[in-house]
């Protein structure tokens, strides 16, 4: 989507290696989110950020850390990747913490495979 870019789009990594996924936005939105999507589970929130250096955990945060050193970038790190972290990862952005009438915008996703 215009305004939000995820990188890489696809990645294959080995168990035990660190992996960092990047979400970059050009909308100057305050809130950013990382979700993972797995069959049978819909999307589940990993971590979110409500400002530079302000982050909090979501429902499936174990094994993940995040950082937001500037408004436009929100990084998701798997310190030591495991096969259970094979998933599709979506970033989302929002102007405010109140869901706007048009919902919020998702990136195109990163497909991560841990072998």
């Amino acid at each position, binding site marked *: *989507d215009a305004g939000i870019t995820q990188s890489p789009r696809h990645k294959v990594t080995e168990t035990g290696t660190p992996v960092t996924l990047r979400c970059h936005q050009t909308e100057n939105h305050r*809130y950013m*989110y990382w*979700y993972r999507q797995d069959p*049978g*589970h*819909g*999307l*589940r*929130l990993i971590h*979110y950020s*409500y400002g530079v250096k302000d982050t*909090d955990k*979501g*429902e499936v945060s174990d094994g993940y850390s995040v950082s937001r050193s500037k408004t436009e970038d929100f990084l998701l790190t798997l310190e030591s990747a495991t096969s259970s972290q094979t998933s599709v990862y*979506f970033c989302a952005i*929002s102007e*405010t*913490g*109140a*869901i706007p*009438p*048009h*919902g*919020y*915008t*998702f*990136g*195109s*996703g990163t497909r991560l495979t841990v072998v």
Partner: protein
Amino acid sequence: EDKVVQSPLSLVVHEGDTVTLNCSYEVTNFRSLLWYKQEKKAPTFLFMLTSSGIEKKSGRLSSILDKKELFSILNITATQTGDSAIYLCAAPHGSGNTGKLIFGQGTTLQVKP
């Protein structure tokens, strides 16, 4: 614990059929319910519902919320192959305005020619 449950999980229909997708929820401090359509990539927004009994409509898609019975439905009339997608419902949850969404499992709709 908050939860959102969708049914059916998958559905196969033929072009021209009408489908109804269901979403039930148990969310503390309920504020709104959202529907998204997901084709191959990012979920795209369809509707946000906040008031009970008021139908939202966009072309062949419509949705309604029942806050008494804690559910929402998404109707698609005269289905087309382009309607094939995963349909997700979600609700904001948690205290305060954080924008956190809790999603249902999704309904995978396949429309055959």
